[in-house]
């Protein structure tokens, strides 16, 4: 009769599973994926911000074709004509291989710049004549 004696506590059922292992596993996975998502957002923050900005601005019309060649009359819509560089397409080429920097006409250097500083002869300062002061 001693062989049939069990050591389990009297109120505890041995068939009931423990809650610690699955709960710990779930929490671990949640933490791993959350941190991974946070770091991924930090890494791709620039793309995310530019994407949101492009979506917020609205999609521009896709029908507008950008004209790759400059028209014959001077370009009126240049914002910075003094600093704007433009690629140059040479005859016979399909790809621009040169860049044209705007270089307005500089005034030519004057030849033999001679500065003649003629100082007039400085006359000595005329002192006022001292009159005798009568001592009354």
């Amino acid at each position: 009769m001693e062989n049939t004696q069990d050591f389990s506590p009297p109120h505890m059922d041995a068939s009931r599973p423990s809650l610690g292992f699955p709960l710990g596993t779930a929490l671990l996975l949640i933490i791993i994926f959350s941190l991974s998502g946070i770091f991924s957002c930090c890494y791709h923050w620039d793309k995310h911000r530019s994407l949101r900005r492009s979506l917020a601005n609205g999609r521009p019309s896709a029908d507008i074709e950008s004209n790759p060649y400059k028209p014959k009359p001077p370009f009126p819509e240049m914002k910075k004509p003094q600093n704007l560089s433009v690629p140059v397409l040479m005859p016979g080429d399909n790809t621009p291989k040169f860049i044209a920097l705007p270089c307005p006409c500089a005034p030519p250097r004057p030849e033999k710049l001679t500065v003649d500083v003629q100082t007039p002869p400085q006359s000595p300062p005329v002192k006022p004549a001292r009159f005798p002061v009568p001592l009354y």
Partner: protein
Amino acid sequence: MGNVISGGSRPENHRDRTSPPYPNPNAQYQGNYPSPYQDCARYPYGEMASPVQYVEHQEAVTIRNDINLKKETLRLEPDEQNPGKFLLSFTFDASVPGSITVMFFAKEGKDCNLIATKEDLFPSTQVSFAKGLEQRFKQACGTGIDFSDMSEADLVEANETDVYHVAVKAEVVSEDDHPESGTPNRQITHVVLEKDHKGEYKARVVKQILWVNGNRYVLQEIYGIGNTVDDNGEDANERGKECVICLSEPRDTTVLPCRHMCMCSGCAKLLRFQTNLCPICRQPVDRLLEITVNNNDRN
């Protein structure tokens, strides 16, 4: 072509407005999509309100030049009939007929017009040319430069007073279609004659000036366009033409002022947010110039 097709059908327009654009900017790294240049047209960077601290990125308008003097081919050759004289020779491309004027000891006077300072010793010569590529120019016998007529001190003095030894002005014949344009388009090449260690005189191109629609430009080369651009081989075309950042898209963006063409438009757009240094030479970037490569020649 793609834009015209999409513009014709209304359901596609309606669908495009509601859904986000199909070519996702983040999808740049998933490989080449069918038409990258069409995607560039949908996002004109000038319209985006970017902060001032970022590097300016703009899509450029290309100037079409009519005459191009290939400066690597310019050299001095001895005159066979006149010993002691040297003739100027070079190769040039021309898409329209024009004329070439060779001036010795030229100087830029008022309004940047070329003036020959020693016209009596070395008269200027003008030769007309027809339309064509890879044309070869050589001065006529007896019209070259004679070094016995001057000393080395004259060359040094000319350098100090902004006088160029040789100036080649390639000018387009003005057509009657545009009478309002006063000054025709032309290209001016400034050459300096130097003596090498053997005592012979060599020609060196120091500057190339371009006049287009009355505006004056200085021509500078773009680095990064390899010799494989004109190669017809299929394998040679692909080598060396990818972006140095993503290694998949073709290069179409030039970094200024160092003029390195090394990135695609997507990587250049992302580069603005991360750094302001050129990926090739690490110099500070002032602007990013996107150059649209014309694959199908319209002319």
